[in-house]
């Protein structure tokens, strides 16, 4: 819940900070000092810890190479970190609406676009926290083969793009959803749909249609890029085409989220409202 206690402080004077920064500050306080961010981070660390433990055990038993185990952990971190940002963003507007705090927020002298931008960046803070939590695991799994730096840079770049894409998607859904439950469930459903191509058999992924599906999907394309860097030891530009859809997805959806929210952050949800 975002409560801007002193609306007068938000007046757009030359000395006051931009409105989106005020919203961001309030959202971060709400997310992290309110405890929700830490609880989600705790759940994330448990999950990544279990994955890291399993891959370390498999590496110890020679069933997995160190590069593969590092890549696998990083890919799980990117996917789950993206999920966290999606959940927070999907709650951003519909949640305020259901808790009855959206009206107060809309009465403040901050534009709807600035509200959306502040909320979007605040949701991304969960991804950055998730990445910081992942760093020790990646170091532990990858330091023996000297791939920690490459893994972390690739993970940060791809994870940030994926997180921007998913958070923007969640915010758009949240603007239109008639209820918070619909917003969250629809966002989760869309995320699962994006992750579904990873379950395709290897043969189907190598066929042209499967390859195209993996390339146009920002999640699978991003994860494939990470795998190429970490597992195959490729250079940064060798497989740069795999980054195309994460970059386009992040840019297009972030722009769309800000534009859509400028018009559709309203007291009543639903597409016809």
């Amino acid at each position: 819940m975002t409560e801007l206690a002193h609306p007068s402080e938000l007046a757009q004077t030359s000395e006051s900070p931009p409105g989106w920064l005020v919203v961001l500050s309030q959202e971060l306080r709400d997310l992290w000092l309110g405890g929700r961010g830490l609880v989600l981070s705790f759940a994330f660390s448990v999950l990544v810890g279990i994955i890291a433990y399993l891959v370390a055990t498999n590496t110890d038993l020679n069933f997995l190479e160190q590069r593969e185990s590092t890549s696998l952990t990083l890919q799980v971190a990117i996917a789950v970190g993206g999920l966290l940002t999606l959940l927070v963003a999907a709650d951003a507007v519909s949640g305020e609406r259901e808790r009855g705090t959206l009206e107060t927020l809309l009465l403040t002298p901050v534009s709807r676009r600035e509200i959306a931008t502040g909320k979007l960046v605040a949701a991304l803070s969960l991804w950055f926290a998730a990445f910081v939590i992942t760093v020790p695991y990646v170091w532990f799994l990858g330091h023996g083969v000297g791939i920690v730096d490459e893994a972390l840079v690739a993970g940060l770049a791809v994870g940030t793009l994926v997180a921007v894409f998913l958070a923007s998607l969640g915010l758009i859904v949240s603007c239109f959803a008639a209820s918070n439950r619909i917003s969250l469930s629809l966002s989760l459903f869309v995320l699962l749909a994006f992750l579904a191509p990873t379950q395709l058999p290897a043969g189907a992924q190598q066929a042209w249609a499967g390859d195209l599906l993996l390339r146009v999907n920002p999640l699978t394309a991003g994860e494939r890029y990470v795998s190429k860097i970490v597992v195959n030891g490729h250079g940064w530009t060798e497989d740069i085409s795999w980054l195309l859809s994460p970059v386009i997805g992040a840019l297009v959806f972030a722009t769309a989220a800000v534009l859509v929210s400028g018009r559709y952050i309203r007291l009543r949800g639903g597409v016809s409202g």
Partner: protein
Amino acid sequence: MRVALLAVSAGVLLAPVATAAGTENVTVTVAPERIATELGGKFAFTSTISNTGPTKARGLIAHLNVLSLQDGTYVDPEDWSANRTRYLDPIALGESTTVTWRMQAVNDGDFGIYVAVLPESGEPVPPVTGPTIRLDVAERKTLNAGGIVPLVLGIPAALGLMALAIRIRRRG
């Protein structure tokens, strides 16, 4: 007519014998015949395929197989070795060829490994197999692989404590 029938019969009878010549004079030996390792352990053994016949042996395929000697243990040979089929070069008479097989123990327990040689012509002749290699795979418990447990427990514990402290402070 009778001559023709005899000729056909002779052809039918002789055909399998002629094609079976590809493997009937082939012998397979393995070394070592007993291997002990632990779960996840990588090991190798060799099989020597010898041609004891009067002519060059051509078109032979050596195939590796592994099975559990105890009921109830699932074995997927693909997991044990990524390269289980070898297409052999022709073996001159009196000569032999040695194939090295690299494997990884995926399950613990007692297993049998054997190499079968058969003709690539697909003729219905029995494959020639070498002696069974007895493989003993010891169980191995990896509870703290590389020392990861402190990390796996420490990070969530630290975050959990922080979350708890914030909750307590908010309530207080």
